[in-house]
């Protein structure tokens, strides 16, 4: 009974409801401590995880209200996470637990996920850091995934408070050494458990073969070559071991400036144009000789890539005239405050000014600018037939962002899950985005912490939101991916460069004889059961009809595009059934009618593909002369080009397997509600929202699938094979709009006061007679 006792009037914040009845007095708690501990859930430790400190009789407030309800339990800090152990797991045994993360529980916060820690001293909230003289009575933890935890330490023993608070502060705030990352202890301890998932076909780009495959896939191999000159990171530690450069580039040039000033290939467009990136040469102004050398070197490089067969190169300098990392940092820190809400009152205060607050954070505007830049570059590649060279100081922040956005828009392969993961692997991981610094995993410099990758995910979310059928994955996938940034058992986001990863791995190899087996985040089975993984997959996505052989050829290299046979039948069979209908019924219906009702699969004569592939090709070539002069011309004309391209694309029906452009008008850029609002209880809509549509959709898909099977089975005289598809969403009558996240934080709390009060009120004459007394319904 005390395990989730209810205490009122305590805690640090203002207590606006004086009428609150306290059932349990602190003294009682101490006497009953044994009982409390007995009821507690045991702490699950991952392999290699060590318990550092703990404190019992901590009260975790149910976040939403000011009436100080809470659950008692133990607060624990390990070298992996902060965990609260209450006995509130009882309610979580049905549907919603299917979307449970296997690694991180509902009340777990990985150390890297902690954003800010506040302490409440005498009702005043202060940021906690360093050595404390005085220990707070309440601990507020803001997480990077925007959860907010309130722990009341009032009933905890003093020495335990000291230990846990300083423990948490030390392990989350103090600078850390790379080799102290939990990643390594986990990898060392979990050697045997780690098994590579055979279904995981994400291209990792850590071998020469992978790069060749990508070149082959995009037909870029004619003009570009994969080089292994950096094997063992001999040339440069910033660059991956293998990368792709223009074919005529001499190898000695590569090592000249440690990889600076080298155009690196990102991706080739169907028309042969390529997206390149280059890190700027280091600027040393006082040394004239060196800058002279640099200049002539660059001239040589440009000459090489300007000469046919290469298209004209347009240089896009992302260091100037575009976002600065500082902008992104400021905007996000303002933006996230809108969602890190300590109590309801705060929420309601901000709610009135929601739109203007949102606007003043300018996060959405930054998203718009990124999308716009990507469209501009897409226009150059697609319509103007020029190569685009992205230039940035290290080519590892905005370069990654812009080039991967361009690829998501232009390359339908990048909109499949495998393709998207390969893209992140290619542009971000191998592209040397310094995740360690940008996420501030080691707590070494707050200045370096810039959510560039999150910005990218948010941009992709805008695309997913605007064109759902074009993507193989759902917004839930993106949300879960963004959460995975802070889980230090995956190596993917915990290094600054591939060199760092390999190097650290080698170091520990000396001591341990066996190579470390670091997990990759793409192995989703580590985090989610197959059933839960269904929610990461967009049921409406339809694979491209197999007309285009060239596209397929590449696939075969890595095996068929993994549809993951373990998923339930409706799910894996649906796309097949789709094409089957189109083929089997053979009448006018499938091609024609579907186009009317559901523009998912465009027939081959689709105007858009014609527009971009063949018809305009010669047109573009005719315009080539004009185009060159345009490049030199003012930005006005560039703007017109952009506008024209943008408008003409949007005025035509969308081919989900072709070029995809986002809308960037004011009303079109939205808040990624699932990620940002999911922990705010006020924001839930029970039985509504997207979840309602999705569940309806799944139901219908299942039905379609079942009928399809019946039809298929009929000619063979077999009985209908009715697959009992386990539906994640079925059965739970009313889902919250924020499903699958919202329900995770459901608490089996009972109303604090007897609710029958109101109904009996009519008979309670004395209450009614107190006419001049204000009666609040909540308290009756």
């Amino acid at each position: 009974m005390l395990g989730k006792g209810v205490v009122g009037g305590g805690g640090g914040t203002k207590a606006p409801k004086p009428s609150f009845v306290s059932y349990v007095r602190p003294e009682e708690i101490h006497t009953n401590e044994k009982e409390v501990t007995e009821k507690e859930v045991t702490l699950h430790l991952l392999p290699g995880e060590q318990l550092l400190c703990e404190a019992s009789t901590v009260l975790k407030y149910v976040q939403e209200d000011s009436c100080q309800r809470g659950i008692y339990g133990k607060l624990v800090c390990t070298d992996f996470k902060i965990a609260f152990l209450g006995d509130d797991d009882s309610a979580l045994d049905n549907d919603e637990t299917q979307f449970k993360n296997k690694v991180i529980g509902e009340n777990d916060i990985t150390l890297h996920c902690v954003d800010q820690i506040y302490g409440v001293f005498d009702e005043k909230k202060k940021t906690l850091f360093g050595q404390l003289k005085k220990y707070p009575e309440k601990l507020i933890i803001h997480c990077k995934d925007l959860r907010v935890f309130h722990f009341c330490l009032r009933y905890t023993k003093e020495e335990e408070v000291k230990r846990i608070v300083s423990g948490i502060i030390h392990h989350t705030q103090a600078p850390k050494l790379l080799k102290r990352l939990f990643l390594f202890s986990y990898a060392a301890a979990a050697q045997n458990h780690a098994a590579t998932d055979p279904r995981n076909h994400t291209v990792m780009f850590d071998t020469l073969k992978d790069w060749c495959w990508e070149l082959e896939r995009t037909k870029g191999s004619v003009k570009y070559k994969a080089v292994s000159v950096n094997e063992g990171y001999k040339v440069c530690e910033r660059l991956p071991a293998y990368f792709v450069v223009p074919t005529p580039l001499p190898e000695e040039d590569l090592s000249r400036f440690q990889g600076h000033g080298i155009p690196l290939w990102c991706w080739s467009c169907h028309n042969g144009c390529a997206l390149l990136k280059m890190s700027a040469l280091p600027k040393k102004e006082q040394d004239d000789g060196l800058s002279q050398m640099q200049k002539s070197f660059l001239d040589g490089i440009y000459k090489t890539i300007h000469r046919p067969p290469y298209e004209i190169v347009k240089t896009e300098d992302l260091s100037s005239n575009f976002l600065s990392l500082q902008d992104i940092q400021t905007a996000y820190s303002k933006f996230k405050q809108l969602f890190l809400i300590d109590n309801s009152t705060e929420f309601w205060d901000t709610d009135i000014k929601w739109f203007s607050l949102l606007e003043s954070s300018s996060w959405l505007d930054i998203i718009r600018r990124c999308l716009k830049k990507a469209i501009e570059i897409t226009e150059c590649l697609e319509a103007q037939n020029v190569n685009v060279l992205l230039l940035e100081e290290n080519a590892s922040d905005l370069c990654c962002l812009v080039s991967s956005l361009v690829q998501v828009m232009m390359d339908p392969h990048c909109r499949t899950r495998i393709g998207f993961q390969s893209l992140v692997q290619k542009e971000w991981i191998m592209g040397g985005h310094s995740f360690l610094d940008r996420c501030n995993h080691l707590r070494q410099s707050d200045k370096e912490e810039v959510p560039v990758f999150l910005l990218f995910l948010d941009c992709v979310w805008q695309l997913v939101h605007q064109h759902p059928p074009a993507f193989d994955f759902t917004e839930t996938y993106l949300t879960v991916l963004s959460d995975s940034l802070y889980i230090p058992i995956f190596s993917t986001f915990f290094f600054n460069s591939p060199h760092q990863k390999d190097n650290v791995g080698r170091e520990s190899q000396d001591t341990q004889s066996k190579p470390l087996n670091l997990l990759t985040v793409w192995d989703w089975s580590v985090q989610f059961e197959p059933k839960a993984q269904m929610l990461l997959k967009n049921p409406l996505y339809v694979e491209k009809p197999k007309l285009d052989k060239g596209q397929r050829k590449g696939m075969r290299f890595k095996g068929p595009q993994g549809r993951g046979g373990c998923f339930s039948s409706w799910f894996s069979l649906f796309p097949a059934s789709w094409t089957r209908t189109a083929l089997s019924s053979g009448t006018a219906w499938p091609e024609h009618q579907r186009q009317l009702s559901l523009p998912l699969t465009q027939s081959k004569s689709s105007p858009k593909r014609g527009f971009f592939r063949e018809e305009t090709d010669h047109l573009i070539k005719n315009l080539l002369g004009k185009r060159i002069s345009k490049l030199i011309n003012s930005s006005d004309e560039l703007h017109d080009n952009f506008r024209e391209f943008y408008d003409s694309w949007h005025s035509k029906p969308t081919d989900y397997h072709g070029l995809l452009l986002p809308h960037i008008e004011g009303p079109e850029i939205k808040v990624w509600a699932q990620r940002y609002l999911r922990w705010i209880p006020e924001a839930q809509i029970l039985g509504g929202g997207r979840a309602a549509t999705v569940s309806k959709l799944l139901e219908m898909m299942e039905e379609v699938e079942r009928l399809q099977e019946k039809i298929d089975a009929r000619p063979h005289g077999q009985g209908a094979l009715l697959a009992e598809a386990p539906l994640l969403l079925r059965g739970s009558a009313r889902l919250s709009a924020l499903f699958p996240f919202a329900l995770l934080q459901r608490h089996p709390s009972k109303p604090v006061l007897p609710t029958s009060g109101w109904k009996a009120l009519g008979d309670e004459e004395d209450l009614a007679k107190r006419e001049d007394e204000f009666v609040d319904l909540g308290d009756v």
Partner: protein
Amino acid sequence: MWWGGRGQSFNIAPQKEEPEMGHSGPKCVQRTGMLEPRSRQLDGHVASGCLPGEQILAWAPGVRKGLEPELPGTLICTNLRVTFQPCGWQRSQETPLSSEYDFALVNIGRLEAVSGLSRVQLLHPGSPLKFIPEEILIHGRDFRLLRVAFEAGGLEPQAFQVTMAIVQARAQNSQVQQYAGIPLSKAGQSSGSRKPPVPLLETSEDWEAERKKQGARGWRVSTVNESLPRYFWVPKRTLDSEVRRAFGHFHQGRGPRLSWHHPGGSDLLRCGGFYTASDPNKEDIRAVESMLQAGHSDVVLVDTVDELPSLADVQLAHLRLRALCLPDSSAAEEKWLSALEGTRWLDYVRSCLRKASDISVLVTSRVRSVVLQERGDRDFNGLLSSLVQLLSVPEARTLLGFQSLVQREWVAAGHPFLTRLGVTGASEEAPVFLLFLDCVWQLLQQFPAEFEFSEFFLLALHDSARVPDTLTFLRDTPWERGKQGGQFNSYTQIYNPGYCQPPAGNSVNSQLSVWDWDLRYNSEQILQFHNPGYDPEHCPDSWLPRQQPSFMVPGPPSSVWLFSRGALTPLNQLCPWRDNPSLLAVSSRWLPRAAISSESLADQEWGLPSHWGACPLPPGLLLPGYLGPQIRLWRRCYLRGRPEVQKGLSAPTISGLQDELSHLQELLRKWTPRISPEDHSKKRDPNTILSQSR
């Protein structure tokens, strides 16, 4: 293909118009099939599309712009509307009133003429047009935009004429109420015993049937009509004399009447403000009290306008919204959000939703009887009471249920549509009904599986508010509507002498209502009224009403409460007169208001949404979200003038799947006739969708 609503409502693909006409089957043989090269004369068939009493004032050939592809045709100005008729297009016989290319004159919000770089706004007939317009832009009050470029080459005078004619006609139109609706027979339907698609509540039988449907056993239909609908519901025990006695003490005689009876036993009533200048005697007060109380021991009074915007606020917000949504709106992209906030429209939407949500919790979960009181009882009372019903009654969320809800709470209850929608040009313009539609749209957004009707239906309703062919929304009171219906025949005779009058006495039924969708939309469009995501699990059958508690003997109310800002305050008495007859100011009898409670009633009742899983809500009750991030802009309606925003709004994937489903079912049925047809997908026949299930 998206179906085209009216004009640029949706992503209409105008080149489809040709094949679409084939839909009318053999009838299209009748039309003058030849597509003559732009005749210099007005085609005969163009004139044939006119309504009775409609006169063509001017016309000019032109090209519709702004939407891809450009569409050549003719711009016609009549005394009722401005029509753009594409070449070769003709009103289909089956949908004689379709108005895809129409702009009713009252709908014209702004008119601009463009020549070269100069651009002039035309407002008054006197305002001079100093150049021959090359292009004309008509901004609709319903957020549509018509952009027509005139042809050069000798036809400039016509362009000038038609422009001036529009200006003139619009000015005259705002002075005269000349819309009279058209009789059914003219619309190509037999005027005999045709049942209206939705009970129009113009007979006592309609009211009786509706009462039975609600299970309001303690109520009866009263025929004591004053300024109210001809019929309404009063408590069974109340005599007509008492009703008359009581109603006299309400503003404009709009005494308390039943809006909706909750099967749990509580009632939702609406009434006008107390007529405080009157001096009621004891009997009168008793009658008033017994009617307000309606047999319940305690009653909650809700001051409707409290926390809601004033009429002027609504009008201002709507004007601002319209300005913001213009295609050439000056709001920069990055300032869009604050500009949107600045209109305050969404703020008003959310305050309506919030109040409705609170009241529905009171009525359903707490089983309180609620009396909505608004001085005029014509605007926000209707809005709130319909919203409450939408939230609490699954049946009101069906197509038929929603239409009869609007008919009952708005049309029959005398919402002054004509004034509020600005047709008369009076100063009391305030699009309360459009605010209501926006609220409904928000609900539709939030609960996509709970409503049988779709966004397109709402849009059609939105656009119907100003069409000249039905009287539903073109009169201020049911009385005027009836009167006009009777006078109507003589009116048409002036223009159409040869036209046969329908037999007298049938005039009520022969009048077209807005609910006769099939006359204005083709079957394909009507199919779209149906929400493919509607979950039949939520249909009325699964909704089991609780038992009715026995009625209490009327006596002095044991508790009277005032509900305001999320809290109940006890009141001394129901009426302002009893102890102190000189107390005139109605609000002064109320106690000082409590501070705003941030918690809504739903929160107080069940805690925050995260708890609701543990304590289930009453079945059928929807609790809407009304937070900043949850209230959205109805883009498909308000941003219609900006085609670039409309393109590619999320594809109708559910309906696509539904098509696939029905196709598969059909295949199955064809191949194996013995397999009983699966009834998982609703039959999507427009007739069954809109038909009346009485």
